[in-house]
């Protein structure tokens, strides 16, 4: 598909470094965890998890996002998607644990909304470096219980999402859905493996994307050659044990770099 010309209708400053951009394009068939390619014309095209059917929630990290942060309501970008495989959709009466770190909230927000709307029970562990970096706290609260954790203790538990997870009985949950920095997700996976719950966990991964449609292979992971753009970005924890996950990834020239 060609990029859909999409006008920015609203910009919400979630934190000093994270903004939500809403568009006049709504990808109504997007499932929680699927992503769009956001074309910032003349700069680059980057993958972003859909935080709404018509929106993305972005941290300023590189050229494309920096340019996006200079844009105003009324400016436009190109959107292609939704692409990839998202989270397993929650069913009524299921018990779902969401673990979100930093801007990793983006694909998990719609999952929480969806889970609550079908009558699933939602519990969220929401982590950030500091209180002002917490995103979607109210959104997750509207879906269920929220355990806040900050690295510096400025809000909620002082520590990491794993600090809270360690105190939980994960056997209560039908599924555990995770997104955040890879090191955080890796520590969660290890903890869940010890508790025998890794095969009930789903992780939304980040890798360098070129084609984004499952052809070029730039985002393939060792050792199974899984394409993060098409077989993922959401992958079951059992597929990530004994993989490159948490250890290394590939750069834009496909060289291995440490996570």
């Amino acid at each position, binding site marked *: *598909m*060609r*990029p859909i*010309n999409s006008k920015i209708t609203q910009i919400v400053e979630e934190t000093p470094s994270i903004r939500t951009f809403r568009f006049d394009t709504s990808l109504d068939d997007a499932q929680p965890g699927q992503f769009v*390619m956001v*074309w910032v*014309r*003349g*700069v*680059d*095209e*980057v993958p972003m998890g859909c935080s709404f059917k018509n929106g993305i929630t972005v941290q300023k990290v590189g050229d494309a996002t920096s340019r996006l942060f200079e844009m105003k309501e009324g400016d*436009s970008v*190109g959107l*292609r998607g939704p692409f990839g495989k998202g989270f397993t959709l929650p069913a009524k009466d299921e018990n779902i644990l969401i673990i979100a770190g930093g801007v990793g909230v983006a694909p998990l927000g719609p999952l929480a909304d969806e889970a609550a709307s079908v009558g699933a029970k939602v519990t969220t562990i929401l982590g950030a470096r500091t209180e002002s970096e917490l995103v979607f706290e109210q959104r997750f609260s509207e879906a269920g219980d929220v355990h806040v954790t900050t690295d510096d203790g400025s809000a909620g538990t002082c520590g990491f999402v794993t600090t809270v997870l360690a105190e939980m009985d994960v056997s209560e949950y039908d599924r555990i859905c995770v997104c955040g920095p890879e090191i955080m997700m890796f520590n969660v996976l290890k903890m869940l493996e010890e508790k025998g719950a890794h095969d009930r966990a789903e992780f939304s991964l980040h890798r360098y*994307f*070129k*084609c*984004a*449609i*499952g*052809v*070029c*292979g*730039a985002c*393939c*992971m*060792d*050792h*199974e*050659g899984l*394409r993060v753009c098409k077989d993922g970005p959401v992958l079951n924890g059992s597929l990530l044990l004994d993989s490159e996950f948490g250890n290394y990834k*590939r*750069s*834009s*020239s*496909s*060289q*291995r770099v440490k996570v």
Partner: protein
Amino acid sequence: MVKITGIEFRNPTILASGIMGTTGASLVRMANSGAGAVVTKSIGPEPKIGHPNPSMVKLDCGFLNAMGLPNPSYADFDNEIKIAKEGADVPVIASIFGGNAEEFVRVAEGLADAKPDAFELNVSCPHAEGYGATIGTDSCMVEAITAAVCDSVDVPVWVKLTPNVTDIKSIGKAAENGGAAAVVAINTLRGMAIDIYSGYPILGNRFGGLSGSAVKPVAIKCVYDLYEALDIPVIGVGGVSSWEDAVEMIMAGASAVQIGSAVHEGVEVFGDIATGIDQFLQNNGYAGVEDITGLAHEVI
């Protein structure tokens, strides 16, 4: 079983270069999906990050891409070939590129220890300045580079040709004269798409190469012409996404077919096409692929 340039393949489908070929693990996955052989992503003398995105878009008629030869360089890629060789029970062909004969030789020699079963020279990428088709449109350079690589390695050398030339036969002849064991035809056709709402060319590189079903008739004609003009085998590639496409390509003169963009529909495409070809041969009383290779030349 087919035998081309002395290498045995369990079936005549080959993963085309540039598709799922960046890591050893992904090459193994393609072999496990039924490919008779796999070709790596094109590897060059230095690490290269490629063009900015968008680098591939699906259009109504095919795919347009301009990756820009991203690769970790031969020094970082020999390990991936080793992984592919150990994990896949099919031949592994190393696609390589350079800006001149010296660079091609450096890359080929650098990868020789990993023992690829053949080298495929990329003199046909349509959108990398100083590489690919810049070289592949000049028959003197194609012959010189082919000869230099053939002298420096002890495995077969294939040369992948660009259709973006007036006469592909003369370039094929140059490869043959340089000592190529086979030619591979075709690489993508130069193309472009523009976003009418902003006026921006969609690809980060502005233009790129067209692949997919749109290019199949062009590929069939190129393979047909090369089969007539050359004494070495022709490996057909361009728009093959079904066993019928593959049989058509083989009847034009291909000894085997490479499959690229069709992986978009599913990695099972190799096994499906290989099974379909086998069934067609059996149903029509042919003993093997060689019975129908170039059949379109004989019936007229």
